[in-house]
């Protein structure tokens, strides 16, 4: 079930009505859990067992960490839970990847490791990161274990964030379950507007750009250098609108039910450095990586060289988290390299006087070019395609091919620039009240617009694969 489907709207209305009708808070939580299970089972009911396994194992480990007095004992329980979570992730997501990689390394020998037909459960990367942070936070004393298994199960399965995040921190979400779950009109108003904004991004921008991006990335050798550049830029916009659109829909859905999710994006394409980009892009992931990987590795506390190395390790693993493919590792590695270079530049080379507008423009341009080139590896199906695109982009081996100046891109870029400009000026987006004639008009206008302008063939959310 995807957010921008008729089924989801019906499902959501039913859940919301039940949450309004039912008075007891525990019963409301059961409704949300049952609804979340139905939401997940709509894709494949067999993996409900996986959700249950992750919840039970981590609930048990969390309780043990909290109740064990000795530090070593706590550590053992923490290690056991992390190993379990990573084994689940490793088996479902990376088993065949590693087997394939080992087999290709041993091409000369006749030994072949067998691969397995494993279905990748949707959202497994997000779920495992959430449960890992749950036990680590208890170990660190940052938060208490969940009051009961129901609460932890909701942290793992709560349908708005179940498939593609944002990655919820237990310290942020669990206290919300302690309060009365109440559907308030004010939240519904705000939530539906956030949801609709996400839908506009996904349906009107990302899905339209997919018609341009997909064919060019499928056969880049057929297209001219200019077209390939445009397709890469279009993909940068597509993935942003696709993923941030999904997040908006998740945040909006949660808001309607009275839950607050943290923001996951903050206009990443206005960044003037790679470091800034990662403060604005997929914030819940970058925060997770910082809190649970970069800082434990030593962060910036063990000297400059170690800090650069830590940045690289974090980004390589962050790349691998996205998908079991060397393309994602390269993508992560490129960002790691970018972060290292930027850190090095900021630490030693950056002249203090350079803070003028042209300097900011050049910084932005360089950052955007770098991010776009890195997206090539993220989007391409394999290395061969990535290298064809890179060669085309940098005019290696000719620039000839089909010239395609996709209209959708030239319509969307100005819209994006204007909306970013107003976004910067306004800060928080202005919300309308549906009681007002103007607010009601805006709601109908957007709903009709979505109906008239949405393409018939909607693409699946890009981040569903992770």
């Amino acid at each position, binding site marked *: 079930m995807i957010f921008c489907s008729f089924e989801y709207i019906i499902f959501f209305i039913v859940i919301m009505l039940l949450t309004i009708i039912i008075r007891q808070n525990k019963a409301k939580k059961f409704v949300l859990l049952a609804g979340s299970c139905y939401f997940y089972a709509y894709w494949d009911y067999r993996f409900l067992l996986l959700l249950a396994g992750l919840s039970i194992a981590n609930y048990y480990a969390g309780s043990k960490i909290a109740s064990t007095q000795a530090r070593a004992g706590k550590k053992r329980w923490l290690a056991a839970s992390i190993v379990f979570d990573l084994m689940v992730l490793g088996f479902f997501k990376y088993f065949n990847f590693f087997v394939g990689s080992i087999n290709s390394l041993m091409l000369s020998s006749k030994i072949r490791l067998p691969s397995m037909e494993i279905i990748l459960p949707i959202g497994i990367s997000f779920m495992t990161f959430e449960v890992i942070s749950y036990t680590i936070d208890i170990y660190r004393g940052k938060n208490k274990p969940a009051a009961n298994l129901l609460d932890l199960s909701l942290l793992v399965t709560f349908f708005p964030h179940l498939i593609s995040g944002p990655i919820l921190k237990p310290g942020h979400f669990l206290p919300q379950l302690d309060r009365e779950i109440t559907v308030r009109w004010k939240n519904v108003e705000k939530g539906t507007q956030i949801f609709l904004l996400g839908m506009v991004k996904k349906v009107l921008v990302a899905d339209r750009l997919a018609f341009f991006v997909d064919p060019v990335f499928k056969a880049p050798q057929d297209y001219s250098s200019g077209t390939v550049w445009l397709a890469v830029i279009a993909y940068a916009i597509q993935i942003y609108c696709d993923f941030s659109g999904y997040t908006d829909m998740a945040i909006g859905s949660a808001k309607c039910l009275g839950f607050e999710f943290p923001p996951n994006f903050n206009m990443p394409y206005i960044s003037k450095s790679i470091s800034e980009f990662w403060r604005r892009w997929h914030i819940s992931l970058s925060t997770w990586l910082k809190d649970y990987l970069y800082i434990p590795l030593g962060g910036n506390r063990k000297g400059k060289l170690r800090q650069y190395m830590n940045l690289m390790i974090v980004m390589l693993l962050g790349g691998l988290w996205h998908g079991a493919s060397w393309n994602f590792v390269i993508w992560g590695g490129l960002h790691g390299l970018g972060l290292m270079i930027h850190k090095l530049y900021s630490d030693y080379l950056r002249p203090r006087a350079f803070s003028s507008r042209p300097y900011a423009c050049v910084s932005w341009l360089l950052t955007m070019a770098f991010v776009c080139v890195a997206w090539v590896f993220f989007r391409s199906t394999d290395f061969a395609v990535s290298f064809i695109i890179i060669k085309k982009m940098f005019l290696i081996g000719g620039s000839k091919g*089909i010239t395609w100046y996709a209209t959708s891109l030239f319509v969307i870029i100005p819209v994006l620039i204007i909306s970013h400009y107003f976004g910067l000026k306004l800060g928080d987006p202005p919300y309308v009240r549906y009681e007002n004639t103007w607010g009601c008009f805006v709601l109908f206008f957007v709903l009709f617009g979505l*109906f008239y302008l949405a393409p018939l063939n909607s693409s699946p959310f890009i981040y569903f694969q992770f």
Partner: protein
Amino acid sequence: MRILKYILRIVAVAALALLVWEVILENSVLREPGGVNSPILGRIMKPGIYLQGTEGYCKTWINSLGMRGAEILPKTAAEYRILMLGDSHTEALQVSDDKTFVHLLQTKLAQNTGREIRTINAGRNGASPAYYIHLSNFYHSFMDPDYVMIEINEDFTTHILDETREFYVKKEGAEYVTVTNFRDYYIWQMFPPLKIIKPFVAFSTFKIALDKIPMMLEQHRNHRASAGQECTPAVDYADIIDWTLKTLKNDYPGMAILYLALNKSESNVEALLKSSANKYGIDLLNMRDALSYYYQSHCQPVDGFYNTMPGTGHINEIGHTIVADCLADYFMRKVLR
């Protein structure tokens, strides 16, 4: 009373939003002018309006017969009239009036021969040879052509048998016959009470909705259908192709076929078409070589547009120029010698 007032306000606001969208759609490429029912031609585009295509960037006038271009005037004594029958590739709503192969052919022939030559674009979206066979008397009496060029493409065999079209062919006993099917909107067949909004169909907002909802429902059904669906059995098209060409030759003695082959390789249908054309002495102008040669030598596709996808859909300005060149060459060599 308060609730009623509230509901009325919501309805009024929704209507206002719809009105704003009507203005937007009427002035954008999504404009949908709807159609009118003609007793002879079936459902045709609304006459007397400017139409904007969703592919390419062109605006064209729709005449009283629902065809693109100016009104068709009576033939003068010196005029040599070529009637171009075909589907949306001939109609070519994607390119401007002076860039269609029909118009380019007229210009080229007039320049090369010095004669008064007029080409009539009778292209019609979704048309198949069933249309040209069924309407042959109308075309002869109303347009009085000296020569008829019929454009068909790879899909013509499926279109000719498609029972959802205005005209199609079906087998009655041992014979094929053309059948008319002047249908209403699909959604009205599904939900007859919705006919109440019939007077509003002239508005883009309603027209798009009536076109889009059935497509969405269809897509939803397809999406939910299991993957293991039965395959449709392969149809033997030899008979229908043979009958089509024989009937066309009979109805339009002075005619040739323009075969717009956009696929890379020759299909079974194409081989059958060649053989039947040969059998009935019909000139078959196959565009495959000319179109693919251009793509191979210039790396630019002859079909598709910036707002769709190059290499798919209807032929673009390049394609129209190539087709016009080939047609002009054919007419100069074989017809107007």
